[in-house]
């Protein structure tokens, strides 16, 4: 994969495709102002105006004295722009035909259609943002849940870079000590210094472990939480599924633009996208596409960290419930007793007390009773799970970063082991260096074309 040419002036529509109130066209590069001058009907020189100013103008039409659109044109002078270059942003009316025409005019005036992520790539190349921040931009655009947005914004702010950078610096400091003991041949490391060093390494290891751990939450932030609804036949899985969606429509705003399929539905709970899966909807099928979907869902259920188990409160016995639950180890289970509309208050209290340890939630999917309690419980679990995140906000949401942190941890573990066993310092230094390099890879200090091309190809055009 090749990186695009950074010398040319580039243009793209920066708003989503389709009709909208307005559409924004972004132009960036040395010739951005000259290109803009060519577009407008009056003689203007945007190279002469102040940075961060907005100008009302008309875009030329195909015939003399006609206009393509009436627009607002914003001017940003390098280096104080998104890309660090001269930038013009044209807010036109959100008609795709108009936007396309304007882009064609800029290309005729010497600009080039931008590749996906190229504006951010330029911001990166011009030193406006580091690699971690660049990736955050991609995340921010793709973010569905508000918590994921937060993590992305945090990463974009450069504070995660700073955090990882500090860990790297602490490691470098320890490395300097190893080097000193290597180069001063007659020095032995005093015991006190050794235990101090071990302590420092443990602290850093702890921080790195938490970072690595945060990826699990980060994954949840990025991809959302998969919650299968399971239970014996006729427990009311589908009606619970529908009840949750009905409740959700009533109390939470629906996430727009999501494709609805018949067996899974996303809702936002405490900033996390939760995707409920109706396992009752998963039956044997001859349809290849549906079968593939069912297969995928099955795997997801296998991997799900949270499961809603539904039972018919009028039929299920305590033994049956316990046996069912015992198969669902290694994950959080919320026990739901359905169809309480068919029971008396006394019977409900009885069941609840018998299953007290499992903290059952009693609902009536039919009458939409208790569904709010179920959503509240899920919300609580999410809050607990993400509590570690919100405390210091350092969450890893990216697989590349996760791999690097694990590599850093691995080498650091080896450093600790060798230090304890009094192995030679040049070997400790070697492992430590590998740890440092892994962290530098996250910060983008390791230069590699393919990595860059890969990262920036994740962007959509216009960003």
């Amino acid at each position, binding site marked *: 994969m*090749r*990186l695009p*040419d*950074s*010398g040319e002036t580039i243009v793209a529509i920066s708003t989503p495709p389709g009709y909208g109130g307005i559409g924004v066209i972004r132009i960036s590069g*040395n010739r951005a102002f000259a290109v803009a001058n060519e577009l407008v009907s009056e003689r203007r020189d945007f190279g002469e105006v102040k940075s961060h100013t907005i100008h009302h103008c008309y875009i030329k039409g195909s015939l003399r004295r006609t206009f393509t659109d009436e627009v607002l044109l914003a001017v940003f002078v390098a280096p104080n722009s998104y890309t660090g*270059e001269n930038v013009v942003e044209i807010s036109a009316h959100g008609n795709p035909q108009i936007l396309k025409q304007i882009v064609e005019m800029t290309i005729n005036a010497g600009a080039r259609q931008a590749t996906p992520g190229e504006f951010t790539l*330029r911001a*990166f*190349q*011009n*030193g406006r943002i*580091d*690699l971690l921040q660049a990736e955050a931009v991609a995340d921010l655009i793709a973010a569905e849940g508000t918590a994921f947005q937060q993590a992305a914004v945090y990463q974009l702010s450069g504070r995660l870079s700073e955090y990882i950078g500090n860990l790297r610096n602490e490691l470098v400091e320890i490395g300097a000590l190893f*080097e*000193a003991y*290597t*180069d*001063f*041949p*007659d020095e032995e490391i005093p015991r006190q210094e050794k235990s101090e060093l071990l302590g420092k390494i443990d602290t850093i290891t702890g921080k790195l472990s938490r970072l690595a751990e945060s990826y699990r939450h980060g994954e949840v932030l990025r991809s959302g939480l998969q919650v299968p609804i399971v239970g014996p036949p006729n427990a009311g899985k589908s009606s619970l599924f529908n009840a949750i969606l009905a409740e959700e429509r009533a109390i939470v705003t629906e996430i727009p633009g999501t494709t609805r399929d018949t067996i899974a539905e996303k809702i936002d709970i405490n900033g996390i996208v939760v995707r409920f899966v109706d396992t009752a909807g998963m039956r044997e099928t001859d349809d290849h596409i549906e079968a593939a979907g069912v297969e995928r869902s099955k795997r997801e259920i296998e991997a799900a960290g949270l499961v809603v188990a539904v039972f018919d409160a009028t039929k299920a016995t305590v033994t049956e419930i316990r046996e069912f639950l015992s198969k669902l180890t290694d994950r959080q289970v919320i026990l739901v007793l359905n169809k309480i509309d068919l029971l008396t208050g006394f019977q409900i209290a009885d069941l609840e007390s018998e299953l007290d340890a499992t903290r059952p939630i009693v609902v009536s999917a039919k009458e939409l009773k208790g569904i709010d309690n179920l959503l509240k419980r899920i919300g609580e679990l999410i809050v607990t799970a993400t509590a570690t995140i919100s405390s210091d906000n350092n969450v890893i949401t990216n697989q590349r970063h996760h791999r690097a942190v694990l590599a850093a941890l691995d080498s650091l573990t080896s450093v600790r082991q060798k230090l304890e066993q009094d192995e*030679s*310092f*040049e*070997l400790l*230094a*070697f492992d430590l*260096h*590998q740890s440092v*390099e892994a962290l530098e890879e996250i910060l*983008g*200090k*390791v*230069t*590699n*074309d393919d990595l*860059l091309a890969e990262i920036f190809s994740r962007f959509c055009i216009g960003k």
Partner: protein
Amino acid sequence: MRDFQVIVIGGGHAGIEAAAAAARMGATTALISGDLAKVGEMSCNPAIGGVGKGQLVREIDALGGLMGYITDRTGIHFRTLNKSKGPAVWSSRAQCDRKLYREFAQELLAGIEYLTLVEGMVVGIGCEDNKFSHVILQDGREISGKACVLASGTFLNGLIHIGEEQTPAGRVNEAPSLHLSESLQVLGFKPGRLKTGTPPRLEGETIDYSKMESQPGDDDFLPFSLRTTTGVTNRVHCHITYTSAETHRIVEANIHRSAMFSGNIQGIGPRYCPSIEDKIHRFRDKDRHQLFIEPEGLDTTEIYINGLSTSLPADVQNDILHSIPGLENVVMKRPGYAIEYDFFPAFQIKPTLETRLVANLYFCGQINGTSGYEEAAAQGLLAGINAVTKLNNRPQVVIDRAQAYIGVMIDDLVTRVPMEPYRMFTSRAEYRLALREDNAYDRLIEIGRSFGLVTDQMMERYVSDREQLDSEHKRLHKTSIMASLVDPDANGDKLPMGVLLKRPGVTYRHLATVDEECALFPERLGERLEILIKYAGYMEKQLREIDRFRQLESRKIPDDFDLGVLSGLKKEAIAVLQQYRPINLGQASRLNGITFSDITVLMIHLKRHYSSSVSRETN
């Protein structure tokens, strides 16, 4: 017709390597020194090697230089430092007889065809069309040449400080070269100033050794040079003593009289070999500092006291000495002193050591900001080789950081201005595990050989060693013995010796006690084999790192590439790139003030540069 093809200025360790290499490569060469009797002089401690430096000496030997061979022949005390650590940082060190060293160096030089020794003080460098043409001597003589290696050491505007006294000089009792530095500045070179120091010299007859620890040499020391077939001989012991509370009191009381602390010295002193006043002032918590008592030769009783560099007045130095156990009645033969000198920050030279301003002029040694014989000799050797290859229109030799300590040193020099005299350390080498004394020949001998600097006899020995190592390596992996014979923790299983050797605590010597063929195998090769096998895992990882390192190193920045017009680069970045003119992207990435994004921009511009030059060619 020029007088010589190559002119080498200076007869120190850089100068003799440069002159010997150039002449042995067939170029008519002149070595000019202010005092020919002082050629090969060890101006400070007569010791060669040390941590990081021992590695340099082996590399010099692998490239066909003289230093290791002279040391083997004139050393009187040989030791391997860091022996308690891993083999990558084992470092050879020798105490030499100063007089013998000088004499043997002169003898070797006298035997080299095409080499002429010229006595005279060079005061100017002449050039035509920005290309070296001749040197001007103090007595008015002019000697013309096609290339010049400047290895003038401490003689550039040297200023000696002893307490409040200041004397312009190169070394004690030798005149400094005042005009050469000026001549270089007239040519446009920008100078900087550095400082280094020496300790006092003692009369050995007046030392009470019974109060000191004795430090004998290593009997199994592996000679520095592949030319040495006989082994080396330890003839003396060194001794260790310590500063006392009284020493620290005297230093504190007189610190205001030190040139270091009275502000007389503008240069910056080396951090790694600080003056005693510096050490005591900086490390107030330490109640004593180690001192090494090292003899300067066999037929002299003069003693060098390592660890006691100072610029305090002579009377204070005397008091300090008398406060040290074993030196209560010592006679000080000469006081220690600090010396300040000009250097020319090495962004002004290319990694070939040729200057950017004047073609065919090469800088090496202290002029580039280094301290130490080994650092100087390594540069001298490379400068000599490159001066001749340039004249023969052959490609210049550039050694990279993954290849040798020499490469590390030169890359460090050309990518940053030293704040203190540059001394080699193993920690300067990222690929330290791959840059060991034991594999210096594997890394470099082919280069030395290609210039005819490695003798046939050395090459034969190298090849024969290699073959023996390879076949024994194979045999160890094929031959199994009972594990418990060499590893007390093991059971009675039979395992290949190559596998057993990987275990901590199992050495080749252990194998030799139970396996007859191991016992017959040369010990020095057995140790090398042990290193190869024990380090194999690390080497694999290190080689992967080196591969990654070379990705950027292989992206050359051509000489005609205009760094001034690159869009997307900050002005500061452009200024740094123009000052240092890195030869490849890797080197650029190591410059201060160059960020990762700068490298990305450079990368893109370079791609365009190459693709456009290709299309020009095809048109």
